[in-house]
């Protein structure tokens, strides 16, 4: 079933939406983005809740004239996820364990019912690559909005996406050939 998606994040919101309506509308978007980013559903759930807690505290700072609520929430989600990664990194260093934590196993619907080959290919990408795919493809954010979330230029964002997709294509095709 196809989900209805916005074509682009337009800055056409003049009235101020309520937090509850924004949370209801964009919960799946934020959660999906975090699943792609962290490659772990459980972690993504916790981070999603944390994102909305943070969003509630900073709700008065949100200005609809500067961007859509979805972009703003994705920015917050990214910050929350990066804090999580840093904390995990510090913890692993303290414990002397340099091995990465075991992610959710691809192929069990981690990425929302994709083909097993595509799931494996996605899981093999780096977090940065998955993140740009989640923003540009899954959430269908335009170049400006995605670049704002990532904190990079539009050109860099496009380049990152192209590389990620190319890598995905190569892995999938290698998998299929194997």
């Amino acid at each position, binding site marked *: 079933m*196809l989900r209805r998606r916005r074509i682009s994040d337009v800055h056409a919101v003049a009235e*101020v939406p309520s937090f509850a309506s924004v949370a*209801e509308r964009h*919960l799946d978007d934020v*959660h999906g983005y975090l699943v792609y980013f962290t490659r772990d559903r459980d972690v993504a759930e916790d981070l*999603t809740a944390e994102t909305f807690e943070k969003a509630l505290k900073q*709700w008065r700072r949100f200005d609809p004239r500067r961007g859509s609520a979805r972009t703003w929430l994705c920015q917050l989600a990214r910050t929350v996820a990066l804090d999580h990664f840093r904390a995990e990194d510090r913890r692993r260093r303290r414990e002397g364990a340099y091995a990465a934590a075991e992610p959710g196993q691809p192929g069990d619907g981690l990425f929302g019912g994709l083909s097993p080959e595509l799931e494996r290919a996605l899981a093999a990408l780096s977090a940065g690559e998955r993140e740009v795919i989640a923003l540009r493809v899954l959430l269908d954010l335009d170049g400006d909005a995605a670049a704002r979330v990532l904190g990079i230029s539009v050109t860099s964002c496009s380049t990152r996406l192209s590389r990620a997709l190319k890598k995905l294509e190569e892995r999938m095709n290698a998998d299929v050939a194997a």
Partner: protein
Amino acid sequence: MSPLNSEEIQAQIRSSSITASPELRARVRELAAAAPSAAPPRRELPWRRWSLVLVPACLAVALAASLAVGLATSDKDRQRSAAADEAKPTGTVFSTEAAHDAATLAAPPAAKTVGGAAGTGLRQQGRAQLYQSELTLKVKDLSTATKRVLRLTRSFNGYVKSVEYGSGSERGSAYIVVRVPIGSVQAALVKLSGFGTILDQHVSIQDVQPQFDKRFREMQGLRDQVAKLQAQLTAPTLSTDQRKALEDELVAARRQLITLQVAQARLQKQTSFATVEVDLRSSDKAVIVPVEPNRIQRALDRSGSILLDELKVVVYVLIVGAPLLMLAVLGFGSLRVRRRRTETRLLST
């Protein structure tokens, strides 16, 4: 399965759906329920806009403050310099007899020095002296030099006593008599000497401390006499004639005391300010008579010097604070770079 291209991969990703679990949805709904229903967001100005507002505001405040202070003090300066009566002496006036007896006996009654170069005639600190100096300068531009003398006098909180302009057929001249606070006279003379070539210079210092001390002793004696007479008048056994005689004596003593006090105060005022006679000469035939500035001009003058002082403070703060600021910026920059590197490393896994 056939290989997929990029478009097909994207289409497949878009068609997928990741939904939040019911528990997560409930958790977020509970959170949202605590939020106000329609809280208007606060419009925050970015720091760049703040700086666009703050910098001109600070400049405007500095300017307004300097104008206000300049306006307020310009008239005060004028009153203070015009009326030598209000001026406070700087270390010469009333000296107690005990402290200055030895100095009084040892000091010469008058001292006159003549110097042709840079001698300013050092006055003795702590003594009452009548200080008079005459300075003859050759200047290139008489009008400018005259204005400078007047400005310098005001800057030392002095005042102009008289200005005379000569219009000889051969050359022009200006004779200016100014009064400058005794504590600043030496600095003023040094600066005046720099306005042109010194042709002649005289300094006259008359030590009037003995007069001060003598009068002080007399006043003290009279005060004692007054106290003694008052004590005598309280005696109940006095006859009418005796009482009358004592009262007459008391009145006379008081009158004499007041006379001495007035004379002492007059001398004090005279010794508070030094008289400097500046004779400017040039080959200019005519001289533009500088007009004594009005209050607005004086206020602007003063505001200008206050603004300059404010600028000096800002420059000083910048000079002292610049290395610290740079360190802070470098520290902040290096933290950001480190953070970015960590982020890149984490995102590449």
